[in-house]
């Protein structure tokens, strides 16, 4: 049963129950209107969106928990211990962020200062909606889904830049500028490696791309160079160590979010992990065969398993490496990743032209 048919059944049941209540009290007009297809489909879409967002945010905060635990083990300690297996830590953190006093520095550009976290969390929610979880489990099945996700991804550095600028602080300005500088180093190789996948599959639709991989092989095998480029650029995209320059806490205090406190900071952190979840999902969808796997468990579970394993790799990278500087990330982006991405694109075109795929 697909997500939409499940939501349709639920919406129809809710509408019928409410309509029955109205009918029994004699308001048959409203009762009749409630079971019309328009109302039921509207409710159906809201239910699907709710499910997708709740699942997306739950996965994101589980990412935070996974990071704490795995990183703890890498560092020879246990990680968080709040509640059962440390699972309550996120809720404790959220509560703490909620009850903090809201401190807004003097002379900030109020509107822009408030807008930056809103843009970040809004973009993150938007991207959750674009990720399909299984052949039947998605919110939107767009023809140009890949394009839209990467377009949405590129808005985040913009929010960081204006947020850093509006905070009226030298550290935040430098953090924002670094986000912009970082953008030009990783965005081109990232999109070039995605282009190779699009060349092989001939589609910009996630479901079609996964279907193509199920029919042939996972694209990581022919496009291993592209996968490496993609993963490195992706770590830069989601601003994790070794590429977390905009929030380099050693030299820039807390980077662009120095002046954000309380729940604003909480939202920004949450948005960061939501973006990490979206990034891992894209990597799994484009290169690791999406939800394909032996059919003894549901495809959605395969998808989740791959996403969590990929994020565990990102955590490992964080545990092993340290932060690079702006000059070095530009060097890595333009001198190493860019030629590799071009080579990879050439391989993809050659495979396509010779008819292997």
């Amino acid at each position, binding site marked *: 049963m697909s997500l939409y048919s499940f939501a349709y059944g639920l919406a129809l049941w809710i509408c019928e129950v409410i309509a029955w209540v109205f009918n029994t009290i004699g308001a048959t007009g409203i009762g009749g209107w409630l079971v019309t297809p328009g109302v039921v489909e509207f409710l159906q879409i809201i239910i699907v969106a709710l499910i997708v967002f709740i699942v997306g945010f739950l996965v994101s905060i589980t990412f935070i928990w996974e990071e704490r635990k795995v*990183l703890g083990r*890498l*560092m*020879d*300690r246990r990680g968080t211990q709040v509640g059962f297996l440390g699972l309550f830590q996120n809720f404790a953190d959220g509560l703490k962020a909620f009850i903090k006093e809201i401190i807004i520095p003097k002379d900030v550009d109020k509107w822009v200062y408030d807008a930056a976290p809103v843009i970040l969390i809004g973009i993150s929610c938007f991207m959750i909606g674009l990720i399909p979880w299984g052949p039947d489990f998605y919110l939107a099945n767009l023809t140009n889904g890949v394009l839209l996700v990467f377009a949405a991804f590129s808005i985040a550095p913009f929010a960081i830049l204006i947020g850093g600028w509006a905070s009226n602080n*030298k*550290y935040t300005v*430098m953090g924002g*500028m670094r986000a912009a500088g970082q953008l030009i180093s990783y965005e081109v190789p990232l999109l070039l490696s995605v282009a190779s996948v699009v060349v092989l599959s001939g589609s910009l639709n996630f479901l079609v791309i996964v279907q193509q991989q199920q029919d042939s092989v996972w694209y990581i095998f022919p496009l291993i160079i592209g996968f490496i480029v993609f993963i490195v650029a992706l770590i830069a995209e989601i601003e994790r*160590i*070794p590429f*977390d*320059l905009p929030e*380099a*806490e*050693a*030299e*820039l*205090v807390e980077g662009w979010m120095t002046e954000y406190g309380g729940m604003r900071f909480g939202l920004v952190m949450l948005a960061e992990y939501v973006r990490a979840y979206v990034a891992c999902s894209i990597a799994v969808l484009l290169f690791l065969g999406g939800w394909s796997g032996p059919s003894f468990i549901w495809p959605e579970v395969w998808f989740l398993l791959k996403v969590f394993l990929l994020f565990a790799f990102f955590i490992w990278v964080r*545990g*092993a*490496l*340290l*932060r*690079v*500087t*702006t*000059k*070095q990330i530009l060097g890595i982006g333009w001198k190493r990743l860019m030629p590799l991405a071009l080579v990879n694109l050439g391989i993809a075109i050659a495979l396509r032209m010779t008819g292997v795929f």
Partner: protein
Amino acid sequence: MAEMWLNMGPQHPFTHGLWNLRVKLDGETIVDADPIVGYLHRGWEKLAENRMYPQIIPMADRLCYGASMSWEHLYCNTIENMMELEVPDRAKYIRTIVLEAQRIGSHLMWLAALGTDLGSYTIFLYSVRERELFLDLMQNLCGARMTYNYCRIGGVRNDVPANFERDFDRVLTHFLNRMNDLESLMDRSSVFRLRMEDTGVISGEQARNLGVTGPNLRGSGVEYDVRKDDPYEVYGDLDFRTCFEKEGDSFARYRVRMDEMRESCNIIRQAIKRMPKGPYRLKPPRNAPKGKTGWAHVEDPRGEGFMYVIGNGDDHPYRLKVRSPIFVTVSAAPVMLIGYKIADVPAIMGSVDMCLGETDR
């Protein structure tokens, strides 16, 4: 972006204490730097003038929380030189052992701080994990973990505990294995080398002119080590080498300290093997003659520590002067910083091993 002054400190994650590094930035490039210290000034030298000689020992502990044994030993050494006391041999060996253990502990503390500066908590946690072993050894010896109050004028407070040799041997064997882990985590990491190599270069000539001492000077290729060049305690009888590197960059300073930790293990092993039996403490006189002076300099983990004392005829010193290695070294910060990016500041100043307690006194 126009040039601007940026205050990195006194409340800033990279400062490890309370000091202010004002840097003038052109974009992200540092064009001028101005270190400001003194936020932690306690009037240590003046306080010492109003205390009896034994009462100053725990105060000397507080000069640097990272290397308190080194400073209390320097104080005791200075007073012994003024009073012309000959310390028993056993006490000298015990002092050498604890000084080297303190050096390893202090260098591990520095490594931990460098790790957080560069953005790797793994380095931080691995280093403090190894440091814990040396803190345990010290606790076994004198009951305290950070401020020991162990050296006495004319010896040490108590003899070594049971199983002292065995415990040290186990810890050193374990630690030398862990050193390989730490080095494979950092030396073989290309990102670590990218950050550390060719940053904060200071030539041997500049370093000497600015009065830089200790591992920071040896990182610039100057082979100067007080333990070797003017031996105190029993360093003259032991066989060890002076660790130095030629490059003068942050990575060289890092390598010098890592080599020194290995060399310290070597020194401890030799000293434990040769430790004689006998008394560990003598009874010092209460008073020092008026106008009599004494001085001592030792190789602190951070550089050359120096103390100069003038007797007042009673049990108080007339004057006690402290030369702190980092107070001098921090004046070389502009030389090391100018021309590099702001992202290099933690790598450069982290490799210097700041300690504000002794700097501001």
